C-alpha cells in the first residue's frame, strides 16, 4: 500500500465522519474499528479527525472529540502519539468556540484523559500537551469551574426554564422607559438619546433570535445592570434636583456632585458605594456586588456595550472571556453567595482539577525496556517489581471486598466497579434463593433445580462476547436451563420454561398418586420427550417424604418459589387432559 492509498483512507475516513452530526455510539465504534484496522494510515486518519474537529459546526465538534477519545482509548498507540502532537491546539481552539454545556462536556472528557491509562498503565497521551491543556483550563478555570457549579449551588438563576427572549425585551422596554423619563427631566441628556438608540438595536438583535442561550444570559445581566443603574441615576438626578431646591432633604451621605453633563457616568457612583458597603460588611443584601464590578470596565458607554454584544455574537472567541467572567460572578453572587464562598469554590474546583495530576505517580511507566528475550527475562531487577507494583496495585486502588478484583480510579472504572458490585449482589441473592428452596433437595430426583446449559457450537462461540453478557443485564440469566439444541445460538431461555415433573417411582403399581395439598389424584403420563413415565406439573417439594404435589399448589404454599414459578393455570389445564 503506497502513500496515495493511505491518503485515500484518510479522505474516506473524513467523508465517513461527516455522518457524525449527533452523538452516535455505533458510528463512533465503527470509525474506531476502521481506525484500528488501518493503523498504517494513522497519520492521515489523525489529520482527518483534526480537520473534522476544526471544520465541524460548533454543535458537532464534541462528537468528533468523542471519536478521538474512543480511538485513543481503544487503540492507543500510534494514535495517541499522533493526536498528542496537536492535542493542545485541537482542544483549545475547539474549546473556545463552544457553548457552555458543551464546554463542560469537554472538561469532563479531558478529566478522563488525566486518569486514563493505556493498557500498560502509561498515561494515555504524551505528558506535554495534556499539561498545557491543564494549564489552559486552570487559567480559564474560574470561568469553567464556576460555570459548572452554579446549577447545583444556586438553583435560582439557571434552574429557571431556558430564558425566553420576551423577558429581555420587557427589560429593554423598562430601561427605555426609564431613559425616556430621564430625557424628559433633562432634555439635554444626549447620552440617554444614544442609549435609546442602542437599546432599540439590541432589541432587534434579540428579536431576530440570533443569539444562543449563553449569549442571552449575558445580555440579560448587562441589561439588568443597566436597568438598575438607570434607576439609580434617575433617583439621584431627582434627588439632586430636589437638593438644589432644598439641600436639607438630601439623605445621601456621600457627597457626589451630579452635574447634568456627567449624567452618563452617574450610575456608577451609587453602585460603587453599595459595592463598597457590601465588601465591608461582607453581606450582600441586594446581590449587587458583581454589578459594581461589572460597571468598572464597561462604564456607561453603551456604544461600547453594543459593540461588545455584536462581538460576542460575531467574533465571540476573542471577546468571550471577559464578559463571561463578570457574568459568572454575577450569577454566583446573585442569591446568597458571599465573597468567601466564591473564593472557596474557586480553590476547591481548581484543586479538584489538578489533583488527579498531583496524585499521579511520578515515575512514568516505560515498558520498552522489557524485551522479549531470555536475558532480560532472567534479570531480577527491582524495576520490574516496581513497575508491576505500580500497574497492579497503585493504579488500581479499589479492591472488591468479595472477590479481590481491582478497579482503577477513572470514571469508567468506577462505573465498572459499581456494575461489578451490583452483579455480586444479584448473584448472591439468587444463590440464596436457590439455596433455600433447592439445595436441600439437590441430589434427589424431585425438583429440577439444576440450571445447566450446553456448550455453544462454533458459530455461537465465534459470535459470543463475554463482556456484553456481563454488562448487559444479569449475566446469569443465560444459564437458566433450556433446550439449547432446539434454539441454537440463542442461549437465553426463561426460567418459566422449566418443566416440573416427578418421575413415577418404580414401586408405583397404579401409576397415580395424590397431591399432598389438595388431595386430588395425579395420574402418571408417558412423556415422549423425557422417555419415561412422569407426573406432569408436579413436584416433591423439598422434602424426602415421597409426597407429590401439584406444582401450582406447591408454589402457592411456598411463596419463595413463586417468583420462579409458572402460571397458576397449569393445574386447571392438567385436569382437563
Amino acid at each position, binding site marked *: 500500500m503506497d502513500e496515495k492509498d493511505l491518503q485515500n483512507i484518510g479522505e474516506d475516513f473524513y467523508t465517513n465522519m461527516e455522518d457524525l452530526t449527533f452523538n452516535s455510539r455505533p458510528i463512533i465504534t465503527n470509525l474506531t*474499528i476502521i481506525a484500528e484496522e488501518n*493503523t498504517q494510515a494513522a497519520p492521515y486518519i489523525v489529520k482527518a479527525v483534526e480537520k473534522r474537529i476544526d471544520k465541524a459546526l460548533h454543535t458537532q465538534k464534541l462528537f468528533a472529540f468523542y471519536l478521538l477519545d474512543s480511538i485513543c482509548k481503544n487503540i*492507543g498507540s500510534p494514535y495517541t502519539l499522533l493526536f498528542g502532537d496537536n492535542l493542545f491546539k485541537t482542544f483549545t481552539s475547539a474549546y473556545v468556540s463552544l457553548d457552555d454545556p458543551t464546554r463542560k462536556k469537554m472538561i469532563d472528557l479531558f478529566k478522563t484523559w488525566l486518569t486514563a491509562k493505556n*493498557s*500498560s498503565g502509561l498515561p494515555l497521551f504524551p505528558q506535554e500537551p495534556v499539561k498545557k491543556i491543564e494549564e489552559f483550563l486552570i487559567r480559564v478555570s474560574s470561568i469553567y469551574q464556576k460555570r459548572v457549579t452554579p446549577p447545583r449551588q444556586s438553583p435560582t438563576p439557571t434552574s429557571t426554564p431556558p430564558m425566553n427572549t420576551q423577558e429581555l425585551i420587557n427589560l429593554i422596554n423598562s430601561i427605555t422607559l426609564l431613559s425616556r423619563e430621564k430625557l424628559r427631566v433633562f432634555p439635554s441628556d444626549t447620552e440617554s438619546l444614544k442609549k435609546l438608540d442602542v437599546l432599540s438595536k439590541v432589541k432587534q438583535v434579540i428579536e431576530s433570535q440570533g443569539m444562543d442561550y449563553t449569549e442571552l444570559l449575558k445580555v440579560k445581566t448587562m441589561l439588568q445592570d443597566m436597568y438598575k443603574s438607570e434607576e439609580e441615576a434617575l433617583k439621584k438626578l431627582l434627588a439632586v434636583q430636589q437638593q438644589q431646591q432644598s439641600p436639607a432633604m438630601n439623605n445621601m451621605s456621600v457627597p457626589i456632585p451630579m452635574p447634568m453633563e456627567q449624567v452618563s457616568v452617574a450610575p456608577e457612583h451609587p453602585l460603587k458605594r453599595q459595592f463598597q458597603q457590601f465588601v465591608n460588611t461582607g453581606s450582600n443584601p441586594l446581590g449587587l456586588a458583581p454589578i459594581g464590578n461589572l460597571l468598572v470596565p464597561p462604564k456607561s458607554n453603551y456604544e461600547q456595550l453594543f459593540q461588545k454584544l455584536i462581538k460576542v455574537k460575531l467574533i465571540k472567541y476573542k471577546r468571550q472571556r471577559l464578559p463571561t467572567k463578570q457574568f459568572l460572578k454575577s450569577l454566583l453572587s446573585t442569591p446568597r453567595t458571599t465573597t468567601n464562598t466564591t473564593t472557596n469554590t474557586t480553590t476547591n474546583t481548581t484543586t479538584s482539577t489538578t489533583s488527579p495530576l498531583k496524585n499521579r505517580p511520578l515515575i512514568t511507566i516505560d515498558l520498552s525496556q522489557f*524485551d*522479549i*528475550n531470555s536475558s*532480560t*527475562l532472567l*534479570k531480577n*531487577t527491582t524495576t*520490574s517489581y516496581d513497575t*508491576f*507494583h505500580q500497574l*497492579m*496495585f497503585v493504579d*488500581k486502588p479499589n*479492591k472488591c*471486598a*468479595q*472477590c*479481590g*478484583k*481491582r478497579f482503577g480510579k477513572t470514571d469508567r472504572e468506577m462505573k465498572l466497579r459499581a456494575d461489578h458490585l451490583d*452483579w455480586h449482589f444479584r*448473584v448472591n441473592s439468587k*444463590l440464596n434463593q*436457590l439455596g433455600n428452596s433447592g*439445595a436441600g433437595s*439437590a*441430589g*434427589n430426583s424431585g425438583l*429440577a*433445580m*439444576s*440450571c*445447566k446449559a*450446553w*456448550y*455453544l*457450537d*462454533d458459530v455461537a*462461540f*465465534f459470535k459470543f*462476547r*463475554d*463482556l456484553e453478557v*456481563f454488562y448487559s443485564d444479569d449475566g*446469569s440469566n443465560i*444459564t*437458566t*436451563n433450556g433446550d439449547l*439444541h432446539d434454539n441454537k445460538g440463542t442461549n437465553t431461555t426463561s426460567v418459566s420454561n422449566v*418443566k416440573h415433573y416427578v418421575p413415577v417411582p418404580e414401586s408405583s403399581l397404579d401409576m397415580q398418586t395424590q397431591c399432598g395439598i389438595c388431595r386430588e389424584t395425579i395420574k402418571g403420563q408417558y412423556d*415422549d*420427550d*423425557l*422417555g*419415561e413415565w412422569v407426573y406432569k406439573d408436579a413436584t416433591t417439594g423439598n422434602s424426602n417424604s415421597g409426597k407429590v404435589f401439584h406444582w401450582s399448589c406447591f408454589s402457592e404454599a411456598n411463596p419463595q418459589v413463586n417468583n420462579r414459578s409458572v402460571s397458576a393455570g397449569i393445574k386447571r389445564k392438567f385436569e382437563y387432559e
Partner: protein
Amino acid sequence: MLVSFPEDSILTKHIIKLKTDATIVEIEAKSEWRFEVAFEQKLLIKVVEGNAEIFGTELANDIEYKFTGAKASIYTHEGCKLQYQGEVSSEYISEETEMGHYINLHLALENIRNTAGSKAPNVLILGAKDSGKTTLAKILSSYALRMDRQPMLVNLDPSNSVFSIPGSLTATPISDIFDVEEGWGNTYTSGPTLLHPKQPNVRYYGYDDINTNLKFYKENISRLGLTALSRLQVDLDIKRTGMIVDTPPLGLKNIDLIQDIVSDFEISVIVVVGNERLFIDLRKKFNGRLSLVKIPKSAGVVEIDDAFKRKLQQRAIREYFHGTASTPLSPYTANVDYKYIKAYKPASGNTSVDAGFNPSIDQLGYDLSAVTGDAKSKSKLIESVENNSANLLYAVVAILHADKKDDEDVVARSSVFGFAVISGADDDKHFVRILLPVPGRVPDKAMIVGEFRYTE
C-alpha cells in the same frame, strides 16, 4: 483402562468440623507460601493483612477460601499475613520463587501488546512434565486480566480439566477472574455462580495421553485453532491481548506436533520452561521466525502423581454434573433405547475394535500410521462403536454438536455440545441409562466415547 475411583462425595459436599485452631502465617514480600491439602482434608485460608495472590489471582481480604485436594502456593508482592485453619499435608514458606521471571515475562508481553502496529502475542508454553507450565499459563492470563485485557486461554493438555472435563481440549476467553478454590472456575454450563462464568469452546479427544491417538489429537488441535483464531479476529478485546497456549509435556520427539501447534494458533512467542535442550533445538528450528525465550523451572512445583491426577479428573467430572459445594447442581437421568444412541470412538488405526481402550496398543498404532504414512488411516478419524454394555457402561461420552445422522467427517470435526455418562446398559432389554447435565430428552446427536469412565 482407567478405573473410576469411587469418590467419597460427602467429604467435599459437606463441611467437616475440625477442631484445629487457626494458625497465622506471615509471608515476607516476594515470597510464597506453599501448601498441599489432600482430598480428604479441608483447609480454610484467610488473608488477614496485606495483599496475596494464588497463581496470579488476587485474594480478597478477610474472606475464607476453602481448599480440598489442592497443591498450590500463595504469593505476596509486598508481604502479607494469612490465617489458616484445618489440615495440611505440607506447608512452608519459600523465597525462591520464579515470580520475578514471570513478572518480567508478563511485562515483556505487555510491551508487545502496547507496541504500535504489532500483533498481540500468541504465547505457546512448552516444557517437561511438572515444570509449572499450567501455573505459568494461569499466571500470565491472570495478569493480563488484571490489566483489563481479555486473553484467550487454550489448554491442549487432555489430562488437565480446564473449564471442562478431562480428555477435552479447550479455548476459553478469560473475561473475569479465576476461581481459586475450584482451580479454574465455572462455565456457563453451570447455574448461577459466585464469579463470572466463562464460555469455552470444547473439543473432545477422549484420552489422557496425547500419544494414544495422536492423529485425532492433531485433528482436534487444528479445529480448535481454527475456531480460536476466528474468534480472535473478530473479538477486539481478545485480539488486543492474544492467546496463551498451555500444552502437554512435549519434547524433542514432538517437534512436528510443536510445529503444527505453532501454525494452528499463529504462535508468535514460545516460552520454554526448564528445558535447555528443547530451547536450543527450537532456536535452530524457528531461527528468528518467532520470539523464543526460556524460563527456569520453578523450585516450587510439586510432582503431581497419577493417583492425585486421577482424583482431580474424577472431581472435574463430578463437578460437571453435580456442581460444587457452593453451587450444587442436580443432573438428570433418562432411560433410552439403544437405537437413540450413536457413539463413535477415535479410530485407533488398528483394526481391533477394542484397541481404543488399550493405550499400549494404541501407542503401536500411532507408530504404524506415522511410518506407513496416512494412506490408510487418513480416511478415518473416528469409527463407530457398537452399542453394548462392554463398550458403553460407565463411559463418559461427549455429545457433539453434529447430528447423529451426519457423516463421520462432520462428526469428527464437531465441537462438544455437552457431556453425559452412560450409567447403565442392558444388552437384553436394549436400553441405556444416561446421566445428562440438562433435563430434557437425550439430544439427537452423535457421541464420542473415550477412555474415561465415571460412576457416581
